[in-house]
Structure formats: structure tokens, C-alpha cells
């Protein structure tokens, strides 16, 4: 499976009387965008605002971040099984609008976190501060259930990204990247002497505001399976979760998964990147046992020498992570696990809720309990009304001057466990 990914770099985003991309500027007809994504009977009001890098703007509570992309050639469309038919995606050509994102914001539950500061110290903790963000705020009708509200906002965000992506269809990208994964037997024949490497991609799948969808299927209902990496670049996996925002994968992170990107870099040179095994993180312990059995079985079946295992979330997913690690190692396959830590505000506490001697190659993406003071911003998109009640916040978090003292777990993507972060860890 081969995908050409054409990157179109956007320098600025402005509202205009017609949506178009000219000279690196994305012009958006606000009314047309709202008319395209609106109309959901579950939503009362919908509005869109822009937030640019460097501005004194705070976006919160953030639900999802999505990169506008469009299928140019090849089967299927963006977000298969959700907005497009369930064709298998990942081949042909896709265009992506770089440096921009659709961000959905607004309260679904009263303790919802997710902060993106576009400047100041908080901006250093979220990769999304570097993007021109098209922020959509959707207020639900009165009395709506949280599940319906979440689903409505999820769809609005995806539709907005799809709408904007369409305008990139006929443009000539400034950069084209090629990604190719051969069927297993062909790749082994092509690279007989290279070690075979896979990626076990763990997805958060536990219920309301904790869900992920694969080709439209609620991933808590899947058993682990194999995807070509390029399917993920074409929107095969979307986010329905945002609780404890630091280590959740927004849709943008799935579309731009940096472990997959990096694995492709040396594919065919230093190793043979065979593919991705997706698995879930369910509440029911037998599901955890079954899914980790299956990831280990698939690793062995694919003849892998080594895998990278990335986690999504903290706490009970630590159990999935360690189950995956142990069982895969027991099959004779080397593992590197990618996680984050809740090591207390001083960083001195036990980092994970589970551990095992076989987990001897670990990459951390930061301590989510680390406290940061976010200065006041001139403009708030969304509301800070709930900051005192969010993960990592506390009574008095929101000060009279608008500054916020909070643990970095409240910042969207701060300790993302695919490494899509600005934090690094060094051992001295």
C-alpha cells in the first residue's frame, strides 16, 4: 500500500467572503463553513473563531483537534466509516493543510479540561499552539445527554476539517512525501536481512469521553487487528476522548502519528517496518487479557523482532501496557514502551500504576503532575469557568487576574504518549 501525502503549507488564516487558498493563505467564508457543519438538531448555537500562534489567546475546554485533509486519488474519502464510505483508505494521494487545525471547544461535562495557550509558557507545552486554529464552539440544546452532545461536537469537528480539506484538492503541494508498506510476504522477500519492526498502537476505549473509533467502529468492540500505517494517515482512526487532555490522542495526532512517521524514516534501510497492530484499553479485565493475548499472538505471527508500544492515558491503561509488554516479550519479541508519568508534583512518586521487569526499555513523555502558572490572556475562546474543576486544577486554580495555576495534565497534548510533544526526557 503506497500513499503520497502532499503537504500544503498555510501561512495565515483569515475570514473572507469566499473560502479559498491563495498564496499560502486560507480564506474562510464563515457563513458557508457554519452552514456546512451546522444543522444538527442537538446543537443550539454554533460559532467559529480564529486563534493564531503568538496571540494572547487561551482556548478551553478543548475537545478535539483535527487536520484538514482530502483524498485526491485512490479509494475512499476522509474519515472512512464516519463521513465517507467504509472503503479501505491509505493508497493513492492525499493532501494535507499544514500549520492549521480545526479545534472543537466548549463544555460537555463540568470538569472538562483541555487548554491550548497560543502564547506564553503554556504554549510551550502544547504542539497545537504553533498552528493557526479554526476554533468551533457548539452550544447544545437544553437537556441533552452528554453522550449525544459529545457525538454532535465530534461530527461537527470532522465535517469542518473535511470542508476545509476539500479546498486543497486541486492545489499543487509544496512537498510530497511517499509512504509505502508492502504486504507481509513481499516485504520479507524485499528486505530479507533487515529486522522486522512493528508498532502496537493502544487506543483509549472505555466509555463516554473515553472512546476511539476505527473505520467508524467503536474500538472497545474490536479485537486487535492489523492496519497499514497509511490507513491511519487517511483518517481511519478518530478520537472521541478528551478526559485528562495531556495524554489523549486528538484526531490530529492519529493523522500525524509521529511514531509511524519516524518508523517510515528508516524503513527499508535499518529495519523493515511491517505494519501497525491496533488494540484497545477496555474496562473489563477479561477484555484486557484477550486483547493483550492477541497483540502478542499477532506480533509472533508477523514474525516481528521488535515492536514499539504506545499507550493512551494513565492508570488502568498502565495494566494494558504492561500486559502487552510482558506477553509480547514472552513471545521473544523485544519491546520499547512509550508512556507518560504521574509522579507527583515533585516527581518523586511511583510513575506508573503497574510495572514489570520486562519493561526495561521505556520512553516517557513527561510528568503530568508538574505544576505550571499560566498567565492571563487577553482573549478566551470557550470559557475558563470550569478551570477550578478540571484535572490538574484545584480550588483557587483560576485567579482573579485570569491567571491559572494548574498541573500540565490540563494542557492538550502536553505529555502525549506517541511522542507528539514538546517535552523531552534526558537521563544524566
Amino acid at each position: 500500500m503506497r500513499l503520497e501525502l502532499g503537504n500544503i503549507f498555510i501561512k495565515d488564516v483569515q475570514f473572507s467572503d469566499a473560502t479559498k487558498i491563495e498564496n499560502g493563505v486560507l480564506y474562510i467564508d464563515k457563513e458557508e463553513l457554519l452552514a456546512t457543519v451546522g444543522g444538527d438538531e442537538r446543537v443550539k448555537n454554533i460559532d467559529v473563531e480564529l486563534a493564531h500562534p503568538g496571540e494572547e489567546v487561551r482556548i478551553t475546554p478543548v475537545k478535539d483537534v483535527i487536520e484538514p485533509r482530502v483524498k485526491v486519488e485512490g479509494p475512499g474519502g476522509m474519515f472512512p466509516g464516519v463521513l465517507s464510505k467504509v472503503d479501505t483508505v491509505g493508497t493513492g494521494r492525499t493532501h494535507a493543510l499544514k500549520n492549521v487545525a480545526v479545534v472543537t471547544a466548549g463544555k460537555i461535562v463540568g470538569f472538562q479540561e483541555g487548554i491550548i495557550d497560543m502564547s506564553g509558557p503554556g504554549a510551550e507545552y502544547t504542539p497545537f499552539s504553533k498552528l493557526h486554529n479554526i476554533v468551533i464552539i457548539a452550544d447544545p440544546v437544553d437537556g441533552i445527554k452528554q453522550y449525544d452532545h459529545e457525538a454532535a461536537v465530534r461530527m461537527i469537528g470532522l465535517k469542518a476539517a473535511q470542508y476545509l480539506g476539500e479546498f486543497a484538492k486541486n492545489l499543487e503541494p509544496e512537498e510530497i512525501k511517499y509512504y509505502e508498506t508492502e504486504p507481509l510476504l513481499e516485504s520479507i522477500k524485499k528486505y530479507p536481512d533487515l529486522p522486522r519492526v512493528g508498532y502496537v498502537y493502544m487506543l483509549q476505549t472505555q466509555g463516554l469521553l473515553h472512546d476511539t473509533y476505527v473505520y467508524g467502529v467503536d474500538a472497545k468492540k474490536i479485537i486487535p487487528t492489523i492496519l497499514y500505517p497509511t490507513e491511519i494517515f487517511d483518517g481511519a482512526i478518530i478520537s472521541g476522548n478528551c478526559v485528562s487532555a495531556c495524554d489523549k490522542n486528538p484526531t490530529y495526532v492519529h493523522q500525524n502519528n509521529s511514531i509511524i512517521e519516524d518508523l517510515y524514516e528508516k524503513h527499508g534501510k535499518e529495519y523493515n517496518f511491517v505494519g501497525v497492530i491496533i488494540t484497545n484499553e477496555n474496562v473489563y479485565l477479561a477484555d484486557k487479557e484477550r486483547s493483550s493475548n492477541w497483540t502478542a499472538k499477532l506480533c509472533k505471527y508477523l514474525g516481528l523482532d521488535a515492536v514499539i508500544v504506545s499507550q493512551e492515558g494513565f492508570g488502568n491503561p498502565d495494566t494494558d501496557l504492561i500486559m502487552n509488554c510482558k506477553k509480547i516479550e514472552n513471545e521473544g519479541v523485544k519491546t520499547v514502551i512509550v508512556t507518560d508519568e504521574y509522579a507527583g508534583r515533585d516527581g518523586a512518586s511511583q510513575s506508573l500504576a503497574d510495572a514489570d521487569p520486562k519493561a526495561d526499555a521505556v520512553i516517557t513523555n513527561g510528568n503530568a503532575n508538574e505544576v505550571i502558572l499560566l498567565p492571563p490572556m487577553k482573549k478566551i475562546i470557550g470559557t475558563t469557568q470550569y478551570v477550578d474543576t478540571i484535572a490538574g486544577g484545584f480550588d483557587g486554580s483560576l485567579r482573579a487576574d485570569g491567571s491559572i495555576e494548574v498541573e500540565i495534565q490540563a494542557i492538550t497534548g502536553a505529555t502525549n504518549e506517541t511522542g507528539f510533544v514538546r517535552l523531552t526526557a534526558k537521563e544524566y
Partner: protein
Amino acid sequence: MKPVIVTNNPKVIESYKELCKIVFIEGEYMDVLIAVRDYIHKGHELLTHPLSGSIKPNETPYKSALISSDVGQMNISSTTIIEDSILTAKKFIENKKTPLWTESILEDFSEIDFRLLESAMGSIGL
């Protein structure tokens, strides 16, 4: 055999009281974990992860867990998971106590806990 629900979440009672046995704990998040641990020590098996969900143990006051109704030898895996979960929860609660929430936020926490449990009940066809 149908599982036993151990919970301090009133919403769970309303929805599942006809379906299976419910042990209602008049207490906090940690009290539920302690009760689950005691059942495991008596030979019940742990069926759901006690730290289900991403809401931290010092945020939500509600917790629901499933244990087996069957009683056998003490299950070592269940014991390890509940003990590790209690240690992790303590770490959070000692770091910062659960705030006194408004009614509306309590309702949201209750709903999330209920939906997490519901996802586990779905796994066993209930």
C-alpha cells in the same frame, strides 16, 4: 454467573438493580476500593479495572467495580491489581483531596462512572 457490582454511585443502582446484585457503599472513592479488596481477599475475582477511566481518583467521588459472585481461592492477579490501584489512588488523594463539587458536576461524574461501568457490562452482555 452474573457479577456483583460494588459502587457508591446512586445512578448505578437505578439502572442495574434488576439485573444483578449490588453492594452499595455509603462512602468515598477509596471506600469502594477497600470494599473491593476485602471481597477479593474473601475469594471473589476482580472483573473490572478499579482505576477505570481517565478521571483521577482525587477528582471523581464515584467509583463502580465488578467482582465475581463466585467465591474460590484468593486470586493473586486480582489482589495485585487492587493493591496497586489502592496505592495509586492514595498517591493522588494525599497529593490533593477531592474538592466539594456542585450538584451539576457531581451529576457529570456520576454519568461518566456509570458509562464506564456500562462499557464493562456490555462486554459480558448485560
